[in-house]
């Protein structure tokens, strides 16, 4: 089962001491004299069309990486128009580099929260774009991000939208999300029907349904509340947890439908 590694003895012929390496180097020299594997960077780039096809491997040039270059995780692109302000990118960021800041929406002229990314902290893991339910935060192939000031590395939503408008190749990998049993459940006795969850739900999938007001038994005091209860439409829910975080009574929780 074990392959003993070859054990060559050093050649006794003094000419051969240096001949083989020198011949190898000369062969490389002859090869690279015609075509060295260097990419003249600011003028040629790996994502150039000429590297998209399969470039001959003989010169050590990249091997058709261009064809799959689009997978590269570089700077984000944000489509502000479709962003639903669900916070999922900020939640999923392991480096806490995403902050939700308010920007005016182009159509409604109202402020809405969109991610602002600090590229001095981002580790380009792609968790945010994986988590984005609407596909509005994607990663592009742009990678050059040098700045002379630290503040230049913080990309506001507008700047990310600028990147989006450049129509760079987007990362095409859309994850097929495995099923998961999590859903928003309601701890009904705690609910006061305040409508906060329905108001803040980014996908508008929570509707407040009327519940019958119970007739109080003699001596029993009814809780002061609005007689409505949230109902979550599971197929529309992106499971961002905004409702949970805004709930004043902490009556919504993650759970499994049984």
């Amino acid at each position, binding site marked *: 089962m074990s392959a003993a590694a070859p054990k060559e003895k050093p050649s006794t012929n003094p000419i051969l001491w240096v001949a083989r390496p020198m011949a190898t180097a000369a062969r490389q020299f002859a090869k690279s004299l015609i075509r060295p594997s260097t990419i*003249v960077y600011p003028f040629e780039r790996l994502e150039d069309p000429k590297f998209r096809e399969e470039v001959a491997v003989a010169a050590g040039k990249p091997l058709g990486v261009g064809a799959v270059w689009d997978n590269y995780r570089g700077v984000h692109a944000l489509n502000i128009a479709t962003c639903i302000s669900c916070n999922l990118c900020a939640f999923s960021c392991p480096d806490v580099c995403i902050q939700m800041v308010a920007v005016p929406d182009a159509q409604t002229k109202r402020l809405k929260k969109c991610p602002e990314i600090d590229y001095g902290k981002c580790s380009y893991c792609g968790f945010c774009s994986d988590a984005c339910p609407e596909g509005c935060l994607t990663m592009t192939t742009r990678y050059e991000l040098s700045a002379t000031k630290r503040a230049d590395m913080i990309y506001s939503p507008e700047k990310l939208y600028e990147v989006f408008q450049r129509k760079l190749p987007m990362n095409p990998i859309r994850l097929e999300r495995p099923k998961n049993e999590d859903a928003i459940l309601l701890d009904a006795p705690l609910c006061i029907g305040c409508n906060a969850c329905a108001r803040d739900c980014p996908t508008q999938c929570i509707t407040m349904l009327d519940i019958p007001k119970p007739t109080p038994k003699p001596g029993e005091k009814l809780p002061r509340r609005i007689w409505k209860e949230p109902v979550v439409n599971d197929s529309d829910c992106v499971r961002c947890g905004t409702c949970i975080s805004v709930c004043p009574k902490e009556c919504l929780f993650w759970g499994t439908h049984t």
Partner: protein
Amino acid sequence: MSASTPPSPTAAPAAGATASEIELPVIQAPAVPFVEIEALRSREFIPAAKEALTSMIQEQGQAKLIRPVFNWAGRNSLFPLHWGLACCAIEFAAAFGARWDAERFGVVPRSSPRQCDLLIVNGTVTWKVAHKLITLYEQMPEPKWVIAMGNCATGGGPFRTAYSVVPGVDKLVPVDVYIAGCPPRPEAMLDGILRLEDLIRTRKE
């Protein structure tokens, strides 16, 4: 000029272009033939010399005369310190590898800080190594520059909450250029070096 474009003569888009007009210069641009590239870079010397001559005529100042030439020399021969800290050091090495070949720009790593003028902090700086980094920086003779390569050097990166990590090397030494990326691609590193060259081009001291 937007943050991504390298300060090279060809690839810069119009400065005043609005967001929607900016096209990625690279993908559409046809590959520049080899000879033209070389000619292009070599033409840089002539503007530098011309600038020197004009300023000599205008101001008759010796410092004004030689500064553009020395700036030209300084930016075309940056010797970074051969020092690998962490992950970015591997990309740093890859940039000196065959594919990207940073030596094209005259960037040759030297092992002794005395012979360097560029400290590329390529990785996480811990408090244990902080004073050694400062020593190395101080051992480098003026004029010298510092590039914070990667997120760890920029701001501690994913490790900035850790108990042992300096949250950014700019707390220790003055940083001229930050390169984002985790780790930055070798191209991004070269882009940072080109940006530094752009800084040196207009240096007045």
